Each structure stands twice: as C-alpha cells, then as structure tokens.
C-alpha cells in the first residue's frame, strides 16, 4: 500500500515538473507576450495541480491534505487574475505605440 502511494507521489510530482518545464519552454519559444501568458498560466496551473496531487498521499492527515489543495486554489486564482492584468497592460502599451 505504501509502495503504491509512494509510486503515485513519484508519478504525480514528476508529471507536475514536466508541465512546469513545458510551460517554461513555451515562455521561451512562443512569439509574443500574450501567447507566453497562455503558456505560463495554463501549463504551470496544471503542473502545480499535479504536484499537489502527488503530495496528497504524503500528507499527515486530512487537514494537511486540504491545506495543500487550498494552496493550489489560491495559486490558480492569482494566476488567472495576474495573466489578465498583464495582458491588459500589454494591449495598452501596444495601443500607445500604434494608436
């Protein structure tokens, strides 16, 4: 049983790291600021979710597990809002240069 749980952790955390790497690759390869925001928010959100999922079996009790989930939710809200704020700022800057 412990082995299965550890295996879940290893798989979850590795998959999470993979998505973080993919998000970073997107950040470097995508052509402009707006497409990069897609890469960062969506891939990192899934990456963090998978890491949290992987860490759940290692949590000492329900309280700890729920704390981990709360971290993910808060990060998700902040990622969603921050990406839109940056996108808005990019657009305003563009329209200032090419009105």
């Amino acid at each position, binding site marked *: 049983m412990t082995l299965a749980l550890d295996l879940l952790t290893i798989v979850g955390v590795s998959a999470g790291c993979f998505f973080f790497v*993919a*998000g970073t*690759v997107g950040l470097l390869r*995508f052509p402009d600021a707006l*497409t990069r925001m897609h890469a960062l928010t*969506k*891939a990192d959100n899934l990456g963090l979710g998978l890491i949290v999922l992987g860490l759940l079996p290692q949590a000492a009790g329900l309280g700890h597990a729920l704390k981990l989930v709360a971290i993910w939710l808060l990060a998700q809200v902040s990622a969603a809002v921050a990406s839109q704020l940056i996108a808005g700022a990019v*657009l*305003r800057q563009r329209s200032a240069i090419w009105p």
Partner: protein
Amino acid sequence: MTFSLVRAAGFFGFWLILTGLSLADLAVGILAALVAMRASLVLLPPGQWRPRPLLLLRMALRFLIQSVLAGLDVAWRALDPRLTMEPGFIVFQPRSPPGPARNAFCAITSLLPGTLPCEEDANGDLLIHCLVVSPDVAPQLASEEALFLQALGGRPDHG
C-alpha cells in the same frame, strides 16, 4: 442572513483546515471567521444570485477537466517543433451582467484551453486573445457562460 451564515461557516471551515481540531484554537477561530465574514460582506455584498450546489459541483468538475486539457494543449504546442498556432483576437459579447459574475467568468476563461480575456471595450464586449483563432471559440465560450450562469442561479437573459 442565511447567506452570511453560510459564508461564516465556510471561513470557519478554512480555519479548521489551518489549525486542526483543538479547543484552544476554536475561540480565536470563531472570531477570525466573524471578522472574515464581515470583510467579505462589505467587499462583496450578496447579490440576487441563488447558487445551486449540484450545478456548481458539476461546473467545478467540468472546469477541472478543461484546465487539464488547457495545460496539455499548451504543453503540446510548446514542445512541438513546428510550433503550430494562429494567435489572434476575437470579440465576445458576454451575457453576464458587469460586476462580480462577469469578472469571475473572465477568471475562469483565462484558464480554459486557448483563451485569455484581455480587456473590456466601451460597449462591454470582451476582447479575448486566442492561441488558435477559429469561429468555434465564441459559441463555445457562450455555452460555458450559460452553464456558469445557470450554476449561479441567475437568469441568463439578465442584463
């Protein structure tokens, strides 16, 4: 009244997550929950929404799957050597009234596959940046929004 109580109970639940069950923490927890409820009522007064728990749960599940798809989609595009995408903007006319409901919908949209709301123009239309521009995006968003409004319990034709 019941609405405030539901919020206070939610905050108290959050406190229990933070501290665990222990008697000494409970008094402070109740105080903290009341403070948080007061703040949340001041900042976000209850509207005329009647949230439906079951529909909300279904939407949360759908959103979870969609955000997994969004992550996969972006990761695939980033790692694909051909870098296939046709970025561009679409204009979306939201049916949700301006305010918390529309803002919440924007926040959800930014985590759905391929869409990122950028700004709201003078007519209240949303400018949405898409990784792949296609005529399917707007109807898809409209159906997401209808689900969202249904779960919130508002009338979709409102506003």
